[in-house]
């Protein structure tokens, strides 16, 4: 009896180590052998040009049929900074950052959250999503929400299903009156995004979490420095 138990324990340990090792190795190898996408879309939000008019979020809601009460795109306003009558505001874009290493994709139990291999856009498969909300909790940028109509997780997809299909720019980009948004392929050295990013200092949100977001920001001059 004790002999068989010992034998069993050994076997079970080997099985567990093997299974977890296999899972880990497979997770590593799938990400390593993944063919790099044909292009990688990114967005630059020039906060120095943004006036907080909400034209982008209004266009987004219209084009993507986003129900009232939830937002794919929001412009957060901070301020005023300075003394009247010379006061400025600071606007921050709140939307999906299309992380290259997306936490939502990693935690999704069904694979409904996925990174489109052709464009690098982080997408949601409405049908596969069961609404466990794990992705919503996992997103450090807190931009995911449950769509009250489809009951699936939803968020900005760079208008992949609407504008990009028509070969035009995302709704927010074309709606922006001050041309504060630049959209394009960062693997193409000639693209406007790359030109803008190479010529202007930019920053990204929460890079310390290792998410490698693809929404870049050009910092406005207004406001104090937050530590």
């Amino acid at each position, binding site marked *: 009896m004790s002999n068989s138990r010992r034998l069993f324990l050994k076997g079970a340990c080997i099985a567990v180590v093997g299974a977890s090792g296999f899972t880990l190795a497979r997770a590593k190898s799938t990400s390593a052998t993944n063919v790099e996408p044909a292009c990688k879309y990114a967005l630059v939000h020039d906060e120095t040009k943004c006036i907080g008019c*909400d034209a982008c979020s209004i266009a987004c809601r219209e084009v993507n049929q986003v129900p009232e009460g939830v937002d794919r795109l929001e412009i957060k306003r901070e301020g005023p900074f300075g003394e*009247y*009558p010379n*006061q400025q505001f600071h606007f921050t874009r709140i939307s999906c950052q299309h992380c290259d290493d997306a936490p939502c994709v990693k935690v999704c139990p069904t694979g409904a959250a996925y990174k489109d291999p052709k464009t690098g856009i982080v997408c949601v498969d409405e049908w596969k999503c069961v609404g466990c909300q794990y992705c919503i909790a996992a997103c450090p940028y807190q931009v995911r929400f449950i769509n009250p109509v489809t009951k699936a997780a939803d968020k900005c997809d760079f208008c992949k299903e609407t504008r990009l299909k028509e070969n035009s720019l995302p709704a927010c980009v074309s709606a922006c*009156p*001050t041309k504060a948004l630049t959209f394009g392929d960062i693997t193409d050295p000639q693209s406007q995004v790359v030109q803008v990013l190479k010529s202007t200092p930019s920053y990204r949100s929460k890079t310390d979490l290792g998410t490698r977001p693809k929404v870049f920001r050009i910092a406005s001059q207004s406001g104090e420095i937050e530590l």
Partner: protein
Amino acid sequence: MSRFFKYVAQMLISILVVVAASTVSIQAVADELKINKNKQCIMCHKRNGIMHGVHANDALDIRCQDCHGEKGGHPRKASNLIGFSHKSTADAATQTQSCLKCHAHDVLALHDWTHDAHSNKVNCAGCHTLHSNTDPMVDVSFQDRSKLCVSCHATK
């Protein structure tokens, strides 16, 4: 059939009468207000000077001169009259100064942050209209408000 038309005709006429009466009465009420009895101005500006909005309220006791300034040499000679529009010879700072006499900028900021952003750099009439019965900014929709921003800020 003819009976039906008779009813419709009666109804249309009665609606017309009510509408006409109310328009006339609004006009009549406006004419009765103290601000619109200001002979110095209304004598010439009967068409374009009648005040309908809240600012016409007798209780406020506002005169045309309170906002537009004293007549001076107007209309023949030079004057310091202030016109409220982007076509006005008065600059934005002068125009806003006139409104800020009553409207504290910090109170305006509570209603909309854009008051702080535009401060004395954009004239109030750029968005607001005062002589009309209601100011379109009072119940402006989110979309129209955004369009208004875009109408000035659009870059080519």
